[in-house]
């Protein structure tokens, strides 16, 4: 699939939030299975990096509005 020409921070942020919710739910469902728990944590780590890159910037725009 070709990348979109103009990115939308809002659309990216929405998907990051979805990932965070899904990964947290995975952790909750892991019932102590380390393979699920730790991989879900890794997903959260990268989601947090994306939050720094996108969501935090969006937050600034929202503050300005």
């Amino acid at each position, binding site marked *: 699939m070709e990348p979109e020409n103009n990115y939308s921070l809002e659309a990216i942020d929405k998907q990051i939030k979805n990932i965070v919710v899904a990964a947290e739910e995975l952790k909750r469902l892991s019932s102590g299975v380390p393979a699920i728990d730790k991989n879900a944590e890794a997903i959260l780590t990268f989601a947090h990096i994306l939050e720094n890159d996108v969501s935090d910037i969006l937050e*600034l725009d929202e503050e300005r509005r």
Partner: protein
Amino acid sequence: MDRARYWNAITETMSREQLEKLQLNAFRKRVKWAIDNSPFYQKIYRQAGIEPENIKTMDDVRKVPLVSKEELRAAQQAEPHLYGETLAVPVSELTAYHQTAGTTGKSLYVTDTYESWQNMVEAFCYNIYAMGLRNTDRVFIAFPYNVFIAFWVGHYAAEKIGCEVVPGGTMSTRARINKMKEVRATALMCTPTYGLRMAEVAQEMGIDLANDLAVRKIICAGEPMPEATRLNLEQLWRSDVYDHIGTAEVGPWGYMCEQKKGLHLLESMFLFEFLDLETTSKPIQLGEVGVTVITTLFKRSFPTIRYNLKDIVQLSARKCPCGRTFRMIDSIRGRTDNLTKIRGVLFTPLSIEEVIRDNFPQIVEFETVVTTAGTQDNLLLKIELNPSVNPQDFSSIENRLVETLKFKTNLTFAVEFVPQQTLPRYEYKSARFKDLRRE
């Protein structure tokens, strides 16, 4: 805008106004985290009456106390073992141990959680992507993979951007050169000193770096690289050579882009302040020389907030044509703790390297020793020449070297020619300056 030119076009090209707001927000969060979780910062911030919600401008930032390596080191003497009061997360969250090289005293222990380590890797991705590394590159890492952070983070960053990584590990220099030839590595990561050393060994092996090897990009780190040394490496390797700066405590914070003119500051992940050398209290202006104070904006485990790096840099007035809006530094001038007075003259050992690499390609290796005789400081520069130099030329080389050094440093050096292969060679940080006056 061609977004693929940047690792992260969103942050690297954002407006200065937005960037500064982003930094201030993140700075406030770091200070709050430190107050809530780090016994070390709790103490000093309570004493100084620091309230995160009152930090709204850069003037407010400057009211937060500076922190030094010595203070962090002292705080590590407390319990719990290893990190003492500097630790700001439970031990169960730690996943990476590293330490500083200890060139300025006892090593500082540095730790990361999985998340802060991945942020370190992310920061290095900005660096190497700007230098032009891509997923078609095969990167050879000439680093012994030990407790020093150096190219550990480079390894994972290269992997993350999709390069194929060849770990040089504990191989000898000859074995590394042969391996680079065998696998046709297209890029190399090493210290500048070791890049020169490899070139010397390749010559002994009869290997032509330009034609027998496929290396076209070299990423240097670990020690200051004067422009003359960078150009020397480019000539020896017929490659593009890039500088990058970072430390174990804070992470990789500055990088060259493909323009190779100065270093960009990674301002979306760090907050930088450049302060006057004398009082470390006033911000310097563009083009001036000052000391670097840095805040890592992503670290929870081992916060470094208004950390005095002691790196002396010249703040650039240049706007880079690459389009990045991050500020730049022109050069790294050394460290405040390496500045020393010799015969009453303020001196940095980096100036010797600048003179040699800029003017004397025939000098293969060198070492400076300062001693005291009575009340007089004596400076001795030991040099090893390329074997092709005619002994008849020694005296003219010596005269020119003494004269150039005098002009550059205002000091008179005695020069000693030493036999080949007698001066130490370095794989990591070099230690070419020996001050024996205090011993």
